[in-house]
């Protein structure tokens, strides 16, 4: 079973007094949806970048399937907050980018890209240019592009952070649908408390100064959605409200108000 493991990771950026992250361990298995939450400066994006291979930890070990992570790779596709799409390509060509890098034939990669665009509900947008798409549509293209690389893990750095509240709500179910359809393991960073509860199979709460794990939750609401329950029923469940209160407390615990 594929495993992405961050083992006792410490990150000490050059020229900074305190380490950004100290001895954090996170384990993402295939089929997991792990969400990192925490106040600003808790190092959640740094940890995601370690998993992506964009930041080298000062101490500790990051591995996928037992092999150390030394560089970015298509087994761990990243989706950023700002979509980072390529404006000189159409939506379809953006999605097909990873396939083009691998030398897949044009007809085959167009077919595959269209499948993925259908999966993110953008069937008719293939020929559109990036600047013709709304923020939500761009983020869908970004997700499809990441999935085209057929990653084992999807690393999401606040992918819904720049979207308006209504779009974000809809994108949450899209993310869950993609996660169940693709069987990848997801590691996601977010600021949204409700978002974390809806999406995660496991929530890791980090606290700043230096970044460390203070609690983990296993909310289980996303499993209920995957089993067929409607998202509204889930959010209306008193258990959801209770979990939200508990998670909020955990995030702001020990903060000097």
């Amino acid at each position, binding site marked *: 079973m594929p495993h992405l493991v961050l083992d006792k990771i410490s990150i000490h950026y050059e020229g900074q007094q305190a380490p950004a992250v100290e001895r954090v361990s996170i384990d993402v298995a295939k089929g997991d949806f792990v969400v990192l939450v925490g106040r600003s400066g808790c190092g959640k994006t740094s940890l995601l970048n370690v998993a*992506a291979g964009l930041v080298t930890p000062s101490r500790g070990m990051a591995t996928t399937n037992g092999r150390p992570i030394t*560089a*970015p790779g*298509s087994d761990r596709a990243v989706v950023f907050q700002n979509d980072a799409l*390529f*404006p*000189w390509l159409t939506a379809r060509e953006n999605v097909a980018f990873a396939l083009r*890098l691998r030398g897949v034939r044009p007809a085959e990669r167009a077919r595959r890209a269209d499948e993925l665009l259908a999966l993110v509900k953008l069937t008719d947008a293939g020929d559109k*240019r990036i600047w013709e798409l709304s923020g939500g549509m761009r983020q869908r293209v970004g997700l499809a592009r990441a999935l085209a690389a057929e990653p084992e893990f999807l690393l999401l750095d606040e992918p819904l952070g720049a979207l308006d509240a209504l779009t974000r709500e809809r994108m949450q179910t899209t993310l869950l649908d993609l996660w169940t359809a693709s069987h990848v393991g997801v590691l996601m960073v977010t600021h949204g408390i409700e978002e974390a509860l809806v999406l995660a199979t496991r929530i890791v709460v980090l606290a700043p100064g230096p970044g460390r794990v203070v609690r983990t939750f296993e909310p289980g609401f996303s499993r209920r959605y995957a089993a067929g329950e409607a998202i509204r029923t889930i959010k209306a469940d008193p258990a959801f409200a209770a979990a939200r209160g508990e998670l909020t407390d955990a995030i702001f615990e020990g903060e000097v108000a």
Partner: protein
Amino acid sequence: MTVTSYTERSNQKIDEVDGLSVPWSPAAPRRKGVSARIISAATILAVLAIWALSARLQLVSPVFLPSPAAVWNKFFVVANDGFVDATLWQHAVASLGRVFAALVAALLIGVPVGLAIGISTVGRGIFDPLLEFLRPIPPLAYLPLVIIWFGIGEPSKILVIAIAMLAPVALSTASGVRGVSQERINAARSLGATKRQVVRHVILPSALPSILTGLRIALGAGWSTLVAAELVAATRGLGFMIQSAAQFLVTDVVIMGILVIAAIAFVLEFIIRRIERVLVPWAGRE
């Protein structure tokens, strides 16, 4: 540091000087009354009128200032019968050929050099001082040296123009490369791109708008170097035509030549803006 400021400055200057609309400049607020375009047209007409009037009243000797009609007629005479053994068309083709040969050379060298400056510290260390040295030297200053080294043939003329074009192309490319968003590069790498693929599929296309701006500036620089390049041992070319005419005090050909050079520069600028709109429609829309 010098690199960015250079292109920005040049950009701004070009956009201000020509009257063409820039796709990414904000729309000017509509004012009541006359527009700048009408004022410009009126200015040109006024200059023409003063010119015609002073020629008609013989305020200046026709040897120094022939009438607009004489210049206009000369255009057709030179176009049909030629001047100094070549028609106007042949002169223009000779000049355009030199400028485009130089442009190709400047692109072949300047774009890779700009990439090297933008991507690697070693590249910047090597090429930045060389370009900064070369950039401010007027072409007439290095023309004699080029002739000593490479003779008075066609290669020397092309080389003089190419040197003038090199810095704008390389420095614009470098500033475009440095402006590539790190997130885009990271995204490509996490999708499995090698370093070479990142350059080919992300950095080059991202820098393309900037490269085209450099090309536009370079073409302007090269075109204005033309007359200097044709100073020595040319037998054809617009610059050569003007100089030969000046030696025989054929002022109408001199003025006609200047106007033709200006007109061609204007058309080239227009064509490049069209190319920009087709090749990089995303510029300024991200």
